[in-house]
């Protein structure tokens, strides 16, 4: 992977393209599904920065999604029903938890990293499900008390769609800026060889911690979007078993590629909708597809497209060379 950012379209053109693509999905899927898909895409983007760019596979990203969702819900019930303030509270909660947990886990890598995240997620799930039952209503879930604020009324699905799309575009722009910046080069270097980066005199821990916190921040944003949009939160949103969904989405789209995260998010959610409607159990299919990705399509959909495009371009170049050799 080249470390410098390749030449790209201007940011606004990319954002317009993404917005157009999601709006084009609305007639086919109905608004409420597209909203769900977009929120999930925000979550996949957060995971992609951690896994695709920094190479840290986490089995515990649901913790930050769930914290964002729960904190914003509880805030909306007990403090203030303003949607933006609730979201802010949720994001703040998720980020603080990520900052604290990051102090421990971002020192680790590979298996210990994946496991400690899973363990923290399990602890979070337990806290939500049992310890703070009085606040979270345990397994029965909790309804948010988010009120409309000015034009921002989430019961209107089109308003929600505009707001969620704006959030998604904002996160995408942030990720695009981060991954193309020197910071992004640094985290990709850490993925390749962290020890060598440390020998160059950089504070590797600081970069890993900061990336972890940013990922927690974006995941919490996705969680608080679920709160204000769906308005009902249950321990499903923090369950450790659901981590595989975001891993799957990231891989099928192509890890380490922001468009891959979006495509993967949409593909996964689409698959989930179709399969859960027709099959009672569909996790085995998820497993089979994961296995085939791992064995044959490591770079996911975007990688497949890129390699086909690449081979077409190479073929054209070869033909041109041949024509020049024997006119």
């Amino acid at each position, binding site marked *: 992977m080249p470390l410098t950012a390749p030449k790209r379209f201007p940011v606004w053109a990319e954002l317009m393209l993404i917005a157009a693509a999601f709006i084009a999905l609305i007639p086919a899927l109905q608004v409420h599904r597209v909203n769900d898909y977009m929120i999930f895409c925000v979550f996949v983007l957060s995971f992609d920065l951690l*896994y695709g760019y920094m*190479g840290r*596979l986490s089995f515990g990203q649901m913790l930050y999604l769930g914290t964002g969702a729960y904190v914003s819900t509880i805030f909306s019930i007990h403090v203030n029903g303003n949607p933006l303030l609730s979201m802010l509270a949720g994001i703040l909660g998720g980020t603080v938890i990520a900052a604290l947990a990051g102090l*421990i886990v971002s*020192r*680790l*890598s*590979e*298996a*210990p*990293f*994946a*496991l*400690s995240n*899973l*363990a*923290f997620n*399990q*602890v979070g799930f*337990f*806290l939500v499900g*049992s*310890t703070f039952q009085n606040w979270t209503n345990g397994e029965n879930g909790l309804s948010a008390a988010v009120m409309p604020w000015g034009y921002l009324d989430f019961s209107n699905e089109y308003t929600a769609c505009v707001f969620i799309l704006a959030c998604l575009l904002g996160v995408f722009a942030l990720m695009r800026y981060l991954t193309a910046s020197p910071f992004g080069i640094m985290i990709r270097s*850490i993925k390749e*060889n*962290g*020890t060598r*980066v*440390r020998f160059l005199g950089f*504070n*590797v*821990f600081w970069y*890993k911690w900061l990336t972890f916190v940013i990922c927690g921040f974006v995941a919490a944003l996705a969680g608080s979007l679920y709160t204000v949009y769906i308005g009902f939160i249950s321990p499903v949103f923090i369950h*450790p*078993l659901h981590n*595989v969904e975001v*891993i799957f989405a990231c*891989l099928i789209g192509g890890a380490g590629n922001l468009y891959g995260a979006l495509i993967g998010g949409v593909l996964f959610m689409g698959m989930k909708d179709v399969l859960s409607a027709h099959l009672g*159990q569909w*996790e*085995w299919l*998820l*497993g*089979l597809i*994961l*296995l085939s990705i*791992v*064995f044959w399509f*490591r770079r996911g959909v975007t990688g497949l497209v890129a390699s086909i495009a690449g081979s077409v371009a190479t073929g054209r170049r070869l033909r041109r060379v041949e024509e020049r050799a024997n006119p």
Partner: protein
Amino acid sequence: MIQSLVYGLTIGAILYFFSIGLSITFGTMQIINFAHAMIYALGVYFFISLLALFKGMVPLAVCGALVLGAPIAYATERFVIRRLYGESLDYAMIATYALLLIGTDVIKFFWGTTPYPVTDPIGTSTNMFGFALPVYRILIIVLAVLLFLALNQFTKRSVVGKIVVAALEDKDGVRCLGINVDKYFSWVFVLGSLLAVVGGVLYAPISTAEPYMGYNILLIAFAVVITGGMGSFTGTFVAAFAMGLVIAITGRFWSQAADTMVFVVMALVLIVRKDGQTDG
């Protein structure tokens, strides 16, 4: 209190059975073998079906479960883990997780989602220090200790054991001596998986069999493996029993927090010991 202690030691013994295989794959390949939980759960379900088939002859059913479990374990190692080993640890972990997903759905398909209760095969209690203690639990503890001693002798006396221990320290070094390390590891992998099956079968009468039974013990066993030091046989033994006691003692005072306490202990150990840190 004695009853809590015995309960803790029983949990520790089961954790020990389960963690050995995990610790070996962790120590040799640095991957988390999620498929371990699949083999554990499958083994228990095989046992239940065979027990009905053989009309309650427990030893026969156990042997049958082991015979059925071995090829699955071997295939996992040979066709998934070994194929991905050396390429990417992340992919190997994801692949084993994918196997776990498939295995769970296979169980749901054949046996359904309702939990199966398994009856205690001994069912009597003994009086010890003035407390009524189930003989079955004491048997489990004794078996775990015997297993520990046997493994100790195996690694110290037999050639295979020595090779495995040496390869856990330095795989390339052993390979340079002209020993086919992979072959020994796949035998040890199968052995570890079968021990997990034994652990599952022993644990089934205390708990119940359900499709997700592997996930829970897997998480706690990971904590055991990390705390005990990856690939260390003695460390795993000590950590398993320590974690079992942590669960039992926490459970006595605050039953819901029992499992969580394990991870708190693990986090503390990780902070203090600072291993597993490759950079920064």
